[in-house]
């Protein structure tokens, strides 16, 4: 079986040398200590599958990339292993070993989320295993800087979840004795394609990878409440009170919804472009006795409002005036963006309950609040929903002046 020697080094490691090549020796233990302290790793990899000539149309290349920081979180009394991913999330192990990460919610509170995959908790030690902790001094030749092939394979397996046999691996060490990369060549894998019973054609799978390390800017911190002060934004949020009009639009929505929040009554038009009632429109009326809102749904065919169950205000529309503005920073004049620690959780709080089914497994990506003349003009949020980018814009108007449209009446 032939092999494909693919030696890739990131640009940052081209100045590195094999100490051992010239008869020098490095302190392998010091290298491992460095990794124990924390590091940033970037891995890019490519897997090329070559079919027999008659099936060459199936040839394909799959690329992989990760960029993450391995380090430690400390609360002053104890420390925990942690990984910061490319999106800025810091993953660490919860009490039962499940991987968790923290995010600020819309109230500037730290919330801890347990990661799951199809309902099963993700185990931190599996998903974010730091492979150098599994490598010992006798796995590295201090003279040649050759890394044991099994452990080199383990590196790739831990970073990418891909198991490949390694032909040869060497550490690349810079002049300061820091490992800046690992040059690995992988053995080609000869897969078997059963073209007819018991008859196999070779499908050749070649793999290459580049691993580079750096050690600056690797400090990790638990997510903490934000202390930002945004008095103008806070005023704008609280000024909404219980009287404003909000139109909700989105890149994945077929129509815009309009919320007319008029004190004790809230009318929801399912088509903001209409100046008339439409089938399914909703009306909520505050019931002082219960402290909840009675709900009614409009039926176009019978031209009647049908009574539904009562709802809490938060089940109808976000209570904007209660949200914290400390989780924002002013990106430019009148435009406020969420701080990184809040982008996962906070945006969901801004979406009305009507969209709950759509946003069931949404991951927040960010939010921008825009002011105009000191009032909240819009709130733009973005999400990843099952891998699809969903952007939602809530436009505010008639703040303090909203009344129900004249055509909205239960008779």
């Amino acid at each position, binding site marked *: 079986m032939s092999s494909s020697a693919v030696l890739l080094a990131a640009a940052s490691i081209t100045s590195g040398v094999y100490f051992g090549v010239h008869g020098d020796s490095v302190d392998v233990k010091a290298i491992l200590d460095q990794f124990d302290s924390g590091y940033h790793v970037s891995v890019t990899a490519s897997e090329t599958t070559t079919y027999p000539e008659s099936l060459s149309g199936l040839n394909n290349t799959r690329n992989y990339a990760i960029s993450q920081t391995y380090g430690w979180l400390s609360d002053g009394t104890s420390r925990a292993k942690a990984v910061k991913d490319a999106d800025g999330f810091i993953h660490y192990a919860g009490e039962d070993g499940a991987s968790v990460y923290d995010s600020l919610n819309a109230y500037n509170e730290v919330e801890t989320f347990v990661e799951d995959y199809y309902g099963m908790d993700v185990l931190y030690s599996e998903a974010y295993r730091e492979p150098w902790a599994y490598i010992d001094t006798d796995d590295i030749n201090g003279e040649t800087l050759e890394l044991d092939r099994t452990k080199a394979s383990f590196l790739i397996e831990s970073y990418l*979840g891909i198991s490949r046999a390694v032909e040869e691996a060497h550490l690349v060490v810079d002049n300061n004795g820091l490992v800046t990369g690992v040059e690995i060549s992988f053995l080609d894998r000869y897969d078997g394609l059963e073209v007819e019973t018991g008859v*196999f054609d070779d499908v050749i799978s070649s793999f290459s990878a580049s691993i580079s390390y750096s050690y600056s800017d690797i400090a990790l911190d638990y997510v903490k409440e934000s202390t930002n002060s945004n008095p103008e934004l806070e005023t704008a949020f609280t000024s909404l009170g219980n009287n404003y009009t909000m139109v909700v639009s989105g890149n994945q929505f077929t129509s815009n919804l309009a919320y007319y929040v008029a004190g004790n009554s809230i009318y929801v038009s399912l088509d903001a472009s209409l100046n008339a009632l439409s089938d399914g429109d909703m009306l909520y009326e505050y019931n002082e006795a219960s402290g909840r809102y009675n709900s009614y749904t409009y039926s176009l065919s019978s031209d009647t409002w049908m009574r539904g169950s009562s709802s809490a205000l938060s089940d109808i529309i976000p209570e904007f005036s209660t949200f914290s503005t400390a989780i924002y920073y002013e990106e430019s004049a009148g435009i406020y963006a969420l701080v990184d620690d809040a982008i996962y959780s906070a945006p969901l709080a801004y979406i009305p309950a009507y969209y709950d089914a759509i946003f069931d497994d949404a991951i927040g990506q960010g939010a921008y609040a825009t002011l105009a003349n000191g009032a909240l003009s819009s709130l733009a949020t973005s999400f990843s929903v099952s891998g699809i980018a969903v952007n939602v814009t809530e436009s505010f108007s008639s703040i303090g002046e909203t009344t129900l449209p004249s055509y909205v009446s239960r008779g």
Partner: protein
Amino acid sequence: MKKSVLVLSALALFSLVGCGGGEGTSSIISGSDSASSSETTSSKAQVALASLRKRGHTAVVRMETTVYRLSGDPSELGVRIQRVSTFKHSYDAVRAMSEELDAYYYDVYLATDSSGDPILDENGDYTFNFVASHSSDGTPATYFRDEETGTAVTHEIDVDNTLDVTYMSDYDDSTGIYSPLNFDVVARNPWDYIRASDLTEDAEGVLHLDLEKANFLVDCYGGSSINWVSDAKVNLDDEGHIESLDIVTPDIGEPGRYRRATTFHVDYSGHGIDQVQDVAPYENDNPELETALACLDGVTNFKYRRDMYVTDSLTGAIQTSATIGYYNEDLVYYHHLYEGTEENDEVNQEVYEAGDDYDYVVAYNEEEGIYYAYSYEWSTFGWSWGIVSLSGTQPYTFNDFSEIGPRFNMVDAAVFRKTGEKTYEAEEAVLANVGTYFDNQFAGVHSEALIGGTTKCIITVNEAGDAIEKVEMAFNSSTWTYNVTFTLSDINNTTIPSYLNFGE
């Protein structure tokens, strides 16, 4: 311990791999994270680790997972799985691991009284009944590291006394591709991934394994269903070698719904001594047997009798049967004998008509140049010969005489060791697969258990030393033990019985 190779997206949350770690790392939380490699590790830890790291040894792993259903509904079954696995690691000329698995499965029933109410113990907790629903003896497996490819391979000696190397592979049914598996994933010795600094000594001088590594170890030993590890106590023998490992795994569950309790313990032995046994072609010199195994080469006339003695280990029931195969180039006749009778008894001087088994004929069709198989069965018009079909209307045919009878000429004499003046016994490495070669290819024992399940195969050569006289075999199927004896006779002197009414 077959592992799957999973291709995952670049930013996937999982790295689902063999030894991917267990379920939790409480040390991370408690702050008792493993010491830096620069920290001084005790010589005790170093000696202990050196006894298993990159060193041959045997590990006997005992694990148990029990899921109790707590709903109070007797119809909700829990389950208990007990597994005992023996892992042997080798670092000699070739890296290898063998694994032998015994597994026992139980259904766990909520204990109830005659009214159907749960029976509680003195603490007010539910009690349970355990009913063994299944148990199995695992098939021993040995994996070797193919140094050229890094893949896991198995070594077997074929009945022709050649070494057969087979790649372990993972099948992707979406592409139809078999991918060889990496040995280092299939057969990890977890101690190769543990540092001395992962072993910390408590006030009593007892070593404890870092919990992340303990979870990793549990996973390497196939303990994916084991709860997260809260303590891993390392016990040493007088020489400071690791003798056993006590893993503590707190119960998990939901009140009123279920509770999952697990146990995990490992015993180590043979430090630096035990090695995985490899196989190599045998060098037995058996010229007489070699001649005997070739006694049917080019021969189309002989008698081959099969006697079966079958016992049921559960009921003690015994069944016996005997069939004589009269082989002739143009026609082969399999005559089933009435139980307890012999070939020449009067009752057997006609085609068998008892209905619990059939007589068969394989006859050459000159026009088509192939053989057809027939069975003598009762039909609307009485007893008659009908074509045997494979399925539907597809007749059972043979292209050549050599496809009908035994094919022991494919077996090399060297895979047998001489055990008596005229007897030879199959060597261990080929025993499981050798039985089928002595069976009739048509109307034989025809048990899949013979392929990979032969437990005995003893050949007796005739007095002249030029032919096989008899072959005594055994195999197990379900609870039944089959003892089968084939007797070869009348080579080139066999006539088809005159009472055979085939073709009349």
